[in-house]
C-alpha cells in the first residue's frame, strides 16, 4: 500500500528532472557551444528571481492556496527601492530590510484576510495585485533607473568558479533560499503542518495542528520571498517600472506545477520547483540558440509542457484512485 504512494510522490519529480536533462542534452547535440557549464549556470543567473519567488509559491500551493500578487509585489519592490535609493538617497542597508518587511506585511495581511475572513485566496491576492501595481504607478509612472553603487556592484560582480565559469550574487541568494525552504518543508513542524493542511484542512484542524497560524505564516513567507525576488530582480534590471514582472505569477505557478506540485496541495518539493524553473530556462536558452524563433514561442512551449504535465499528473492520480477503489 505504501509503495504506490511513494511512487506517486516521486514520479513527477523524476519525470521533471529527466525532462530537463534530456532537453539540455538535445540542445547540446543540436547546437555547438550549448554543452558548457556556463550555459547551465546562466540559467540560474537569468532566473534567480524566478527561483526565489517560485519557492514561496511552492509553499502556498502545498497548502492548497494560490497567490497571484507576486508579480505586482516584485514590481512594487523594484519601484519603491528605486525611488528610495535615487530620489530620497537612502542607503541600501536601510532599503533592503525595509522592502523585506513590506513584503512580509503584504503577505501577512493577505493571509489574515484569507484565513480569518474566509475570503477566496484568488480574490484577495487579486486585490493585492491591483494594490501593488497601483502603488507602483502612484510612486512613478516612468522608469526609474537605479544608479546606486551597491546595486550596480551586485548587478555586475561575478563570483568566479572553477573551470573559468562565474555566477552572480543573485544565484547565491537563490540557492540559500532553496536550501532554507528544503529544510523548512522537510524537517520542521511548520513544513509538516503545511503538507497536512494541503492534504485535508479539516483533518489537520481536528488533529490539533495550528492551521490558522500556519496558513497566515505561509502567506507571510510567500510575501517575504516575493520581496526578496523583487530585490534580486532590481539587481538584475537596475530599474523600477510599473510594468516590471507582468505575468510573472503565472510563470511561477507554471514552474511549481511542472515541478510536480499539484494545485490541489498536499504534495510537492522545492527540488521539483527548481527544475520547473530550469526547464523554462532551458527552453529560453534553446530558443536563443536557435536564433530565428521569436520569444513568444517560449510561451507556447511552456504552455504545451504545462499541459502535458498536468494531464500526466491527472492520469497518475486517476490510476491511484482506481487502485484505491479496487482495494
Amino acid at each position, binding site marked *: 500500500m505504501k509503495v504506490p504512494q511513494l511512487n506517486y510522490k516521486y514520479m513527477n519529480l523524476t519525470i521533471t528532472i529527466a525532462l530537463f536533462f534530456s532537453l539540455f542534452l538535445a540542445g547540446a547535440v543540436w547546437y555547438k557551444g550549448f554543452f558548457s557549464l556556463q550555459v547551465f549556470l546562466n540559467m540560474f543567473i537569468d532566473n534567480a528571481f524566478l527561483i526565489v519567488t517560485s519557492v514561496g509559491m511552492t509553499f502556498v500551493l502545498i497548502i492548497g492556496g494560490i497567490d497571484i500578487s507576486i508579480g505586482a509585489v516584485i514590481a512594487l519592490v523594484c519601484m519603491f527601492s528605486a525611488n528610495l535609493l535615487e530620489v530620497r538617497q537612502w542607503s541600501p542597508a536601510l532599503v533592503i530590510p525595509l522592502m523585506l518587511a513590506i513584503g512580509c506585511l503584504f503577505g501577512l495581511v493577505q493571509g489574515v484576510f484569507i484565513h480569518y475572513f*474566509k475570503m477566496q485566496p*484568488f480574490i484577495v491576492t487579486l486585490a493585492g495585485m491591483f494594490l501593488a501595481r497601483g502603488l507602483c504607478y502612484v510612486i512613478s509612472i516612468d522608469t526609474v533607473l537605479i544608479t546606486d553603487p551597491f546595486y550596480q556592484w551586485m548587478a555586475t560582480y561575478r563570483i568566479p568558479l572553477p573551470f573559468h565559469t562565474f555566477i552572480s550574487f543573485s544565484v547565491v541568494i537563490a540557492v540559500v533560499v532553496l536550501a532554507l525552504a528544503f529544510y523548512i518543508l522537510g524537517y520542521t513542524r511548520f513544513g509538516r503542518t503545511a503538507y497536512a493542511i494541503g492534504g485535508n484542512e479539516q483533518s489537520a484542524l481536528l488533529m490539533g495542528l495550528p492551521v490558522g497560524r500556519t496558513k497566515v505564516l505561509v502567506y507571510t513567507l510567500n510575501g517575504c520571498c516575493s520581496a526578496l525576488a523583487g530585490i534580486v530582480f532590481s539587481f538584475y534590471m537596475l530599474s523600477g517600472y510599473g510594468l516590471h514582472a507582468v505575468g510573472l505569477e503565472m510563470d511561477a505557478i507554471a514552474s511549481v*506545477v511542472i515541478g510536480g506540485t499539484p*494545485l490541489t496541495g498536499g504534495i510537492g518539493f522545492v527540488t521539483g520547483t527548481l527544475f520547473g524553473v530550469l526547464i523554462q530556462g532551458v527552453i529560453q536558452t534553446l530558443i536563443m540558440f536557435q536564433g530565428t524563433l521569436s520569444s*513568444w514561442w517560449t510561451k507556447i512551449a511552456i504552455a504545451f509542457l504545462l499541459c502535458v504535465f498536468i494531464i500526466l499528473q491527472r492520469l497518475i492520480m486517476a490510476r491511484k484512485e482506481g487502485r484505491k477503489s479496487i482495494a
Partner: protein
Amino acid sequence: MEIWIKLWRIVTNSRLFWPLAALAVVLLFNFFYTKDFFVVEIKDGHFYGVLIDIVNRAAPLMLLAIGMTLVVATKGIDISVGSVIAISGAVAASLIGGNLEYVDGTQKLVTLVPMPVAIVAALAVTTLLGMWNGLLVARVGIQPIVATLILLVAGRGIAQLITQGQIITIYYTPFKFIGAGYLAGVPFTLFIVLLVFAVILYLLNKTALGLFIEAIGINSVASRFSGIHVSKYIFLAYAFSGFCAGVAGLIICSNVSSADGNNAGLFMELDAILAVALGGNSLDGGKFSLLGSVIGALVIQSITTSIYATGVPPEITLVVKAIVVICICLMQSTSFRTIIFARWGQKRGSVSESTTVKL
C-alpha cells in the same frame, strides 16, 4: 418596527442587494463630486453623457462577466478570457486586413475576406478555445484554474503568432461599427450585450439549463447520480465563456481599430472574475445571478470612469479598485460580518433581549 426589521432582513438577504448598494454608493459619490454626471444629451442624433459612456465601455466586461458567471456557477473559473480576447481580435484583424487601394482613380478598401466571414471565423476560433478548456475540465478532469492557465500562458503567444508579432490596424470602416457605432442613438455594443444576455437568460429560465448548472455547482456528484449529464454542461459553460470572450474581443478590437496581441484584454480575466464576485456570486459555485454579474461589471466601469471624471490621476485607478474590491469582499464575507456584528450585538445585547421577551 418589527416589520421594518424584517423588511430590512429580506432586502439585505437578497442576492442583488450588495451589488446594487455598491453601484449606488459609486453613483452617489459621483452625484456630489462629478459635475454633469447624470446629464444625458442628444448630439448628432446620439445620446451623449457619462452614464452612456460607462455602459458603452463596460460592454466587453459585461459580456465576459456573463460567460464567467456560468463557469463560476459550475464551481469552475476561466482565467484564459483575456488571452482569448487577444486571439479573437487577432483572427478578425488578420482576416479583414483592409488595404487602401486605388481602383479607377478612387480610393477603395479591399478586405481579404468579407467582414461577416471574419467575424464568424473569430467567434468560431474562440468558441473552439472555450471547448478546449471545457474538454480539459469536464473530460480530463483537470482543475479549472490549471486547465485555463494553459491557454492563458499560450494564448498571447498564439495571438502574437497570428499577428506576426505586430499590431494590425484595421482601416475597413464598417468593422468600426461593432465597437463604436450607434443604433437608434444608443451605442451598438449595448444591443450586443442585451442580445447575448436575453438569449442566455431565456435558455436558463425557460429550460432546465439554469437549474442543472446550479445543481452541478452545489454538488456535482449528487447531480450526476440524479441523472444530469454533468460533463456536458460544464463543457458547454466553458464553450460559452469562450464565445463571450470572442464577442468582447471583437468589440475591443473594433473600438480601437487594431489588434494588439500583447495588450488586448490584458488583465480582463481578473476584472471579469471581480465582476462576478461583486455581483454577489460565490466563487464556490452554486446559485448565481447573471444580472448581479452585469451590475458588478457596471460597478467596475463606474469606478474607473468616475476616477477619470473627478480628475484624480488615472494611475491611482488600480489602488482605488483594490481598496473597493477589499471593502466589497469584506462586506460579502459572512465571517467578517459575524465578527463585526457580533461586537455590535453585544453592545446592544439588552435591546435584543427585550425584543425576544416581547415575541
